[in-house]
């Protein structure tokens, strides 16, 4: 027989790690994949000593851990608002308060665990090397990050109101501006899942910033930037899965509208152009004077083509997150080698053709 905590871990912990597989893959790559295996321990020890010995650096690290903590809290709160999860209110609300707080703590620490593990090792390294005050700061910070969310969860249980904008500005906008279908998904993200889009954009910007930083150390190579772009596109996988689920749940009625297929396809492409717009601006600003206009267009074409194809793959019947990830990685590797061989435009054409074929053949026959 399953215990309450086992069931709740399935609802919260397992879903969290499954939904964030792409995020963790990129994170692990950045932390462990960019360094030669033999130097991995010394690299991380130096990194830890770096932030233990410098308070500005430590502040940045704590800020990143804090953002991850917010992501965890956001995930827990959003789960309560998901359709079909309303049963959590009467069930968790019936548990004795002390037992419930213990459950909150277990669930929260389980998803906050990657930070706790890294912070724990850093604290150990700090103790060995005599950085007692920074270690104390790390311990207090992380204990705090495990405690305050419990109060938020308790409050959520007491006040299960759904969040939506009712401010004057939003009401004015609602009255004077009609949302076009192109913006539906962006509205969904910004109104109901702001942390999700902000965290994806933050990490995507981080990858691009790192790419430009590394490229500045050597002769600028467009292919290097395109590799960074592929990684930043991969970070958007979580949003694509969300997009599919949003379409399945709420935009069923759109299929009944008398709209030609090509317009649906244009809308889909438009959504991903808008979604990738911040990265495009960042690339333009950072690549100013280093890349020609055709080079920039090549980069954008690669990014948008990958995004659209990865989203279109989700129109295949019964494709789950794991299978989708496999195809996405396979396509990414093929595109990477084509880019290395300077076959960027053939790659773009192939991606565009594949996306259009998948969409045009699958959209009308797709069934959640």
């Amino acid at each position, binding site marked *: 027989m399953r215990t309450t905590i086992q069931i709740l871990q399935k609802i919260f912990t397992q879903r969290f790690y499954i939904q964030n597989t792409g995020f963790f893959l990129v994170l692990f790559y950045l932390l462990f994949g960019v360094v030669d295996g033999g130097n991995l321990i010394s690299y991380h020890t130096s990194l830890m000593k770096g932030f233990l010995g410098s308070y500005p650096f430590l502040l940045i690290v704590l800020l990143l851990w804090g953002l991850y903590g917010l992501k965890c809290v956001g995930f827990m709160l959003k789960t309560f608002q998901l359709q079909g999860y309303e049963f959590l209110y009467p069930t968790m609300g019936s548990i004795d308060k002390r037992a419930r707080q213990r459950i909150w703590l277990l669930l929260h620490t389980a998803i906050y665990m990657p930070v706790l593990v890294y912070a724990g090792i850093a604290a150990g390294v700090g103790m060995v090397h005599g950085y007692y005050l920074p270690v104390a700061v790390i311990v207090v910070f992380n204990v705090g990050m495990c405690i305050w969310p419990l109060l938020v969860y308790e409050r959520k249980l007491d006040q299960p109101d759904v969040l*939506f904008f009712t401010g004057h500005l939003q009401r004015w906008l*609602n*009255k004077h501006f009609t949302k076009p279908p192109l913006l539906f998904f962006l*509205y969904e993200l910004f109104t109901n899942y702001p942390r999700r889009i902000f965290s994806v954009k933050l990490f995507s910007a981080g990858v691009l910033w790192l790419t430009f930083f590394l490229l500045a150390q050597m002769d600028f190579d467009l292919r290097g930037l395109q590799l960074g772009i592929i990684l930043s596109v991969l970070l958007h996988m979580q949003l694509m899965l969300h997009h599919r689920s949003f379409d399945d749940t709420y935009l*069923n009625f759109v299929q*009944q509208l*008398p*709209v030609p297929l090509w317009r649906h396809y244009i809308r889909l492409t438009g959504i991903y152009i808008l979604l990738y717009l911040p990265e495009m601006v960042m690339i333009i600003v950072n690549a100013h004077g280093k890349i020609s206009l055709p080079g920039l267009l090549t980069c954008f074409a690669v990014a948008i083509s990958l995004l659209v194809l990865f989203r279109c793959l989700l129109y295949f019947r019964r494709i789950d997150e794991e299978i989708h990830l496999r195809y996405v990685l396979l396509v990414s590797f093929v595109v990477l080698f084509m880019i290395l061989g300077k076959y960027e435009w053939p790659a773009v054409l192939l991606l565009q053709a594949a996306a259009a074929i998948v969409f045009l053949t699958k959209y009308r026959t797709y069934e959640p």
Partner: protein
Amino acid sequence: MNTTETVIALHAVKKSYQDTPVLDIASLALVPGIYWLQGENGAGKTTCMKVMAGLIPFKGEIVLRGNVSSRQHPVEFRRLINYAEAEPLYPSFLTGRDLLELYLNTKGGDRQRIAAISTKLGIDAFVNNPVSSYSSGMLKKLSLLLAFTGNPVLILLDEPLITIDVQALSVLYDLIRSYSAKGVTFCITSHQPLDPAELTVTGTLKVAHKNITLN
């Protein structure tokens, strides 16, 4: 039956969920009128409506007015059929006006007529609010209003009588009568009997054993 009079004709329509067949309709043709679609819970009424509305994929073909095929003219097909769900669900951040504009922009139709219906149903009062603030009755009224947009020849109403108030029910009966008089066909599912004093039903469609029969 003269095919030019036929509003909708289903030919070898089959629908399965995974490997479980739900519908297997060899042939069905309806002339203009008001039809009451009956069936037990789980018989396939909603699936049938979704298939007719082009919302879910199926095998076979559906033809409207003898010449608009679900396969060959998917856009025109969707222009001629409107569908109101039993339990409508829309993105929480959209307002009623957002949805109304979307339907009017794609399906077309007389804006003034829709505005008049909106007023009669009392939707004006909340049309600028996000649908997340709507009660189930308000949401139902909005979905019914959307079903009357455009210039449909067939309107599918899935359980339209539930959750709406008595006044809105009277407006709905009125609308069905007036649209029907203009030649629009209605297919209505309801577990409650349709009031014979309000509506004269042309025929009863029974969904059972994966098939639909017209009585």
